[in-house]
Structure formats: C-alpha cells, structure tokens
C-alpha cells in the first residue's frame, strides 16, 4: 500500500503539474497574440505612422478616420497595414526604413517626406483637403488601426 500509495501520489502530483503547465501555456497562448498586437499597436512608432501631425492640429480623429477611408476607397490596393507602413516610411529611393526605433527620427522622416510630397505635387484631394500622399496614407493607417 505504502509503495503503491507513494507511486500513486507521485503520479498524481506529476499530472497536476502538467495540468498547471499546460493551462498556463494555454492561457498564455490565447492571450499573448492580442497582447503583443496591443503592445505593438500602441508603440510610439505606429502612433507616428498613424498620426498626421499637422493635420491632427486642424481636425479631430473622426475626420482623420474619414479621410483615411476616403484614401482607401481611392487606393484599395494599399489597404494592408504593412504596405501602408512601408509607404509612409519609405524614403525617396523607395528603400523601406523599418529599423528606426527612435520616435523623433521616425517623425522627422515623415515630416520631410510630407514636405517633399507638397514640393513635387505628390498630393491627393480627399473630401476637399489638399493632402500630401504620405499624410493621406497616415490617415488610412489610422483608420485601419481604429476601425
């Protein structure tokens, strides 16, 4: 009884541990992706990507979302986040600048790109707003993240 009982106890303890490990892993498995997504969504970098700086000073988030949707109606092929993010950050040589982690650097790059857009008439008229294509993409990104 004792030896068998000990064996039984060990076996039971192992099963409980496995259950806990599996449960914890399962829980982590279910919650991790949204958590990562959540963390990713609110990273400073994506905030910069999805926030047209000057435009945000002139109109509310609802208007920016509306402008973003209008852009996506015009350019449905750009409706995926990754492409949009690359397009917003891509430099003049179309080289994708994804490695920048310094928020101010990212913002500065976007501002320069917007200025260049206006200089080169790379603009689009959305709901009457004369926008740089880069900031129109920022609006689109914003509308996707906040849909």
């Amino acid at each position, binding site marked *: 009884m004792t030896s068998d009982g000990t064996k039984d106890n060990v076996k039971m303890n192992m099963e409980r541990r496995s259950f806990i490990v599996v449960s914890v892993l399962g829980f982590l498995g279910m919650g991790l992706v949204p958590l990562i997504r959540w963390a990713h969504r609110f990273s400073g970098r994506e905030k910069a990507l999805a926030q047209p700086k*000057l435009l945000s000073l*002139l109109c509310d988030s609802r208007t920016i979302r509306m402008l973003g949707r209008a852009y996506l109606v015009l350019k449905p092929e750009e409706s995926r986040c990754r492409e949009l993010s690359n397009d917003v950050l891509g430099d003049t040589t179309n080289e994708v600048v994804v490695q920048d982690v310094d928020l101010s650097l990212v913002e500065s790059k976007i501002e320069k790109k917007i200025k260049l857009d206006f*200089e080169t008439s790379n*603009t689009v008229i959305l709901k009457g707003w*004369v*926008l*740089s294509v880069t900031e129109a993409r920022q609006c689109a990104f914003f509308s996707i993240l906040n849909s």
Partner: protein
Amino acid sequence: MHTDATKLEDHSLIEGDVCIVGAGVAGIAMALEWINTPYKVILLEGGGFSVESKMQDLYRGKSIGQRYYPLHSSRLHYFGGTSGHWTGFCSPFDPIDFKKRDWVPHSGWPIQYSELHPYYERARKAVEIESANFDFEYWKARVPDLVPMPLDESVIWNKMWQFSPPTRFGTRYKDAIVNAKNIFLYTHANVVNIETNEPVSNVKQVRIKNFSGKEHVVKAKCFVMACCSIQNARMLLASNQQAAGGLGNDHDLVGRFFMDHLEVTSSELLMPVARQMKLYHPWVYSETKVRAELAVSEQKQAQLKILNGTSGLIPKEIARNQPANIDSFSDDAVATVQMWDEIDKQRQETKSKEKENFLFRELELFTRMEQSPNPNSRIQLDAERDELGVPRATLDWQLTALDKRSIRKLQQLIGEEVGRSELGRIRLMDWLQDENNSEWPATLGGGWHHMGTTRMADNPKEGVVDANCKVFGIANLYMAGSSCYTTSGAANPTLTLVALTLRLSEYLKRSAANNFNLDIELA
C-alpha cells in the same frame, strides 16, 4: 461747357472734331486729355448729373445664361457712369494676359503689356492711387508690417492692389469738364443710332434722343464709343440700317466674348497657429491703401494650362457675415448710389477706432478668376425696345470647363504651397471637390466687370477693333474701355481700361495732327 439736351431746340445739329459717346470712366478720362487742345470735343451723356430710375431703365435687359446681376443696376447711366458705385480696386493686368496662350482658346492681344505699361502711370493719377508701382517689395519698404506668407514666388506670388478713394468721376471731374472751353458736354443725350455713309466706311453722324421727345444729330470727324461693354455692343448691333448685322459686324463678332471675372469662395485655409495677415486683410472702405492676393505665376499657368487668377484671404469671422455678392446685389441702382454717397460723406467718422492685430488662423479663399474668352458668351439684341426705341440687350453669360478647372487647380496649387511651407492645409469647398463635376455653385458671381464685346484683334475675322481700338472697316469709329479687351486678366478692369483709353486718346491726337488723316464725308 455744359448743355442739357432737353433744353435744345428740337432737331438741333451739334458739330465738333471728336465726339465721345458716354461720360463714364473711359469717356471722362478721354475728355480730360483733350482739354485745352485746339479741337472741339463733344461729350455725350445719356443721363444727367444724378442717377435716375427712368434712365437706368434704358439699361434693363434679360439674362438668359449663367445667373448674373441685373443689367439695369450693375452699370450706371449718368455723368460719371459706373464709378458711382465703384469700390476702387486697382491692379494692372499681368504680361501673360496679353500673350497668346495655346491652352486658352482665342487668347492673345495684338498689343503686349509693354505697350500699355507707360499709360498706367497716367491712369493711376486719374483714379487717384498713390503709385503705379505694384511690386510687393516696393510696398513692403513703405509699410514694414506687411508680412508675406513664406510661399515660393515662382509658384504663388503676392499680387498687390491699391485702392482708389474711390474716385467718383462724376463729382471729381465735373468742374474740369464743364469749365473747359473746348469740351462740350451734353447731358440727356442718348445715342439711338450711329449712321454711316453708304459704303459703311465712315460714320457721318449719331442721332440722339431724350425723354423730352426731342431728337438731335451730332456730326464729328471721329466718334469714340465709351458707353461700357454691354452698351457699346448694343449700339453697334442696333445701328443696322446700313449694315444688316450692325456696324463692324461683318464676321458676327460684335457682342460675343462677353467676359466677367468669376468671383466665388473656393476653399478655406486652416492653420495650427494664428498668423499676422495684415498684407492680405480684406479691403476696408476708405481705410485700406494696399493689400495682396495670392496669384498663380506665369510659369505655373503654362505648366498646368490654366487661366490667370488670384485668391483673396478673408478671415472666417468676417466671411461668415458676408452673403455672396450675387445674392446681395441690389436691383435698385438709385438706392445703391445714394448709399455710397452717404458712406462717402461719413467716411471720416466711420474709421475704425480700434487698432487691429490682424491675427487669424482660419480664413476663406475668395477666387477672382479670369474667364476664358468664349464666343458663346454674348450680348444680343432683344425684340423688346426701350422707351427711346432702341432694342434692349440680352446677356447670355456662358462659362467653360476651363474656367472651373482653373479655379480648382489654383486652389490645389495654393494648398500645395501652404503644405510645403508648413503653414497649414487647404480644404476645397464642396462644389470643387469632384473634378468631374461641371456644375457651378449658386454663390458664383461676377465682379460686374463687363468686358470683351468688341474685342481687339489683329484682323476682322478674330475681333471687332484693331490694336488702336478702331472698328475694322470703319475709318472714324473707335471703341473705348473694357469692351476692347481680348482677354479679361485676373485684375479688375478699371485701371487698365483707363490706361487703354489714354493710349487711344494719344493715338487720336496724333491722327488729329494730320487732320485725322481720314476721308470724312461731312454732310
């Protein structure tokens, strides 16, 4: 010398060297040039020295095209003419306005800006503005707090405006005209017919009438029609006893190419922070001396294939209290003139007491766009006649797709410039948002700037008058004023029409020195 034609014996004959028909801005500007010359100048004015409803009714007419102002109140039929309700906006045409532009059908004057430029100095004296220099830098040196927006001048530049007091030609120059020994002013002398010799190569005389029922004849060596664009065309068309289609109308061009500036609120400028905008501040009656509008460069006009145009900036708090001109324009010319007279009297008292800081962050852009010359935009004769028996004018104001595209492109260009300079953003008005929408908004009006009905051209197949404003085919008949404009430019017409009239005057004086060098048949 002044004579009221109603007091003359019926069927009087009046004779002179030069007969100027119409004592408005052009007619008076020309007559002033002839004071103390050896020539006898007859100046005919249909109205009297005060505006009268009955006289204005002679200008009544239908408008069958794009919505327009009442014809009987948008111009004034008395001594001084439409200067009686002029607001005084002055700016010269730009060199590009005279050029042939391959993207603007029927563009290209037979004269260039350089030929008119010397006359702007004299014109500015007539309209009593400070300088003939309209360069921004010139004014910046005089008024240091005129701060320009940091825009690229090769794209958008500051077109400067000066403001006449405004000069009411009727009151300002009445004494000079009436006291001149060789200027013979006849009021209540409405020309009802221009009569030529049989081959229709010379004008023999004009017939005048008035409400007293009297009719007189005026003979001269040379006739200058200075009655405004609608009336100049109307009189040529109505004088059809010897030429079926009217005088100077062998090619069916008289009355065509009627133009006005397209004036309409087109967009709004939104900035994150307020800026000092004194340079662009809307005109304030009797206070504003100079201001700027945003104009599109010649280079950009060519690149984008658009018309010339400007945008004025109006702070939103001011704009929201201003109804569209086309909605608020009075059809009572007498009341309008009385209102201006009252304002003129009170101008010293109405000066604003508070010093403004001119800081604004939200403004509306008010476009003033050249109208593309369009043969279908025209003055014709109506079947109905006025009280003196002259067929009334009918206006068919017609706009084109180029007109609308040009307004949209101008706003887009300004949008790109304020974006590039990080000033703010431009938002187009609803009616401009869809580039495929060809409709015009109800708020669209003109500037009651009538132009182009006897246009200037190199040859009679393309215009009614030659480079000297002489009607093709008629040796002694000239047109003065904005009816001669081949294109309308972006600027208000008054300063340029005075300059063009002074140029015509000089040409006629040279001709006069050669006894007009004409084969005149004086009956």
